[in-house]
């Protein structure tokens, strides 16, 4: 494959996979929790939380990226203490790309999990409680296994979205080859130089294939939630 793709392109793919994987894995617990809260609980500010979660879907990605830069930059509201206390810098690092990708993919993750949760009867957890299971045990043994296909479907979608995230990423962490240059950033860079169309096209094909595969897979998995719940 290396004879076919340029080292730069390969590096971008490698980085994108790393960023997307971390973004998905790290946002999964939060995604499940937020989806559960939105699907099952009634609390003040629920609509606000719902809006915040979905905001990156609507907002121009460059705005999200800029807000991230303001908050997590070296002198930002969160970035400054993060650097002062833990020595952690996110801006212009691949870890920052993980954060940007996670936030941009979060709405897709939460939506898929919430959809699966809404198909599961909350009364099943009540039944588990009367059989001696704590709230957490009931969730872990009843609800979670039932929504698992939905959780994986959401994770796959989030992964694909994270692979392709561009606007917020380039604003927050720039486009540094080998450090923050993910696949979309590489495509953009290739298109900026004369004669780069060929290399860009290769990455375009890979991106389209990946996105399509992810959509199909998540569709199949989502259907399995219904099958599981029917108990057949």
């Amino acid at each position, binding site marked *: 494959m290396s004879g076919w793709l340029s080292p730069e392109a390969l590096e971008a793919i490698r980085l994108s996979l790393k960023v997307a994987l971390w973004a998905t894995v790290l946002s999964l617990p939060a995604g499940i929790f937020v989806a559960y809260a939105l699907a099952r609980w009634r609390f003040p500010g629920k609509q606000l939380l719902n809006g915040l979660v979905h905001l990156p879907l609507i907002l121009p990605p460059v705005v999200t990226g800029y807000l991230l830069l303001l908050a997590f930059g070296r002198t930002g509201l969160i970035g400054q203490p993060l650097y002062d206390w833990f020595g952690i810098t996110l801006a212009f690092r691949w870890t920052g790309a993980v954060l940007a990708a996670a936030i941009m993919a979060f709405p897709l993750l939460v939506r898929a999990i919430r959809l699966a949760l809404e198909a599961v*009867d909350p*009364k*099943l957890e*009540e*039944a*588990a*409680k*009367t*059989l*001696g*299971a*704590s*709230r957490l*045990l009931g969730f872990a*043994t*009843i609800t979670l*296994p*039932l929504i698992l296909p939905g959780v994986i479907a959401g994770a796959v979608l989030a992964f694909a979205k994270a692979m392709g995230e561009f606007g917020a990423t380039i604003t927050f962490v720039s486009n540094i080859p080998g450090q923050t240059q993910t696949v979309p950033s590489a495509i953009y860079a290739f298109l900026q130089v004369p004669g780069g169309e060929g290399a860009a096209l290769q990455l375009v094909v890979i991106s389209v294939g990946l996105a399509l595969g992810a959509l199909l897979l998540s569709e199949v998995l989502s259907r399995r939630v219904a099958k*599981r*719940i*029917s*108990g*057949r």
Partner: protein
Amino acid sequence: MTLDVTLTHQFDGFACDVEFSAPAGITALFGHSGSGKTTIVNAVAGLLRPEAGRIVMDGQVLLDTAAGIDLPTARRRIGYVFQEARLFPHMTVRQNMLYGRWANRLRRDTAHEAQVIDLLGLGHLLTRLPGRLSGGESQRVALGRALLARPRMLLMDEPLAALDSARKSEILPYLERLRDDFGVPILYVSHSLSEVARLATTVVVVERGTVLRSGPAAEVLSDPEAAPSLGIREAGSILQGRLVGHSDDGLSEIAFSGGALWLPKIAANPGEDLRVRIAAGGVTLSRDEPLNTSSLNVLHGVIDTVRIGRSAGAMVRIRVGDEVILSRISARAAAQMALEAGQPIYACLASISVARSDIGQTRV
């Protein structure tokens, strides 16, 4: 074992304010839909926290709002069989049944498991998923699942309401065996008087969130004063008897303290104890001994109470041996016959007026 419940709770614009005790056996919470029965059992289970109340089981305080005690559901060890089976769809019948043992970290008791599986006839279903069970089978599995968690008490909220009458009669014998073979006390919510008459040892009548009557089932059900709140048309008494034998012409003879009863053939063996609900509407009365009557059962007794209703009906309670029988007649007939307490009277009951579903097995 006793459960003592006192609670007050406001919901949907009406107040639930009850106080009652449930001794061993099956205590039926009887009342029409929306009378607050489910609120009461949910509070006992800990699924609902009432505004004020105190629930004590065998000396252990489960809830005491004044003292700030509210034991979580998972730690109350109270089984709950819901109206819908609520089986876990991704687990087999066996996994469903063993869930409570696992969640409570109980030691395995294969003898008890076998006993429950045998009682409920679940042996051939263990490897199935819940989606492949019939409604009656699901409800039996739910019952087994609750029992295997070794509850100190079992709550049942209209467990038969979602089933058709064939499935109901499939489950009722299991519940009778549960009542007689396992020592687990049961709080049974129902709005069906025939179910209550067949199963309950104690009856608590609930109406609009208050307790109207409570006491031993035979006493409450045959009380003419309670008849209006139980439903006049469904009123009836309970007789305890023993099956003597079957005749060739399709009848069975039951002996009880007041004599003998001939009823349509009963699927039981001679010597078995039975519990028969006699609907008040099926009992006619005569001051003189009726001869050449079509009623096969003529029981001689003494009038205990006559209650003239607000409309055209009257309810008469008659003592026959150690048992009581209720008769529902017209107020005019009661007046013409000049019925009053203390008079000797003949109660006539046509054999076929007793429905097969009104005859249950019991162990005295």
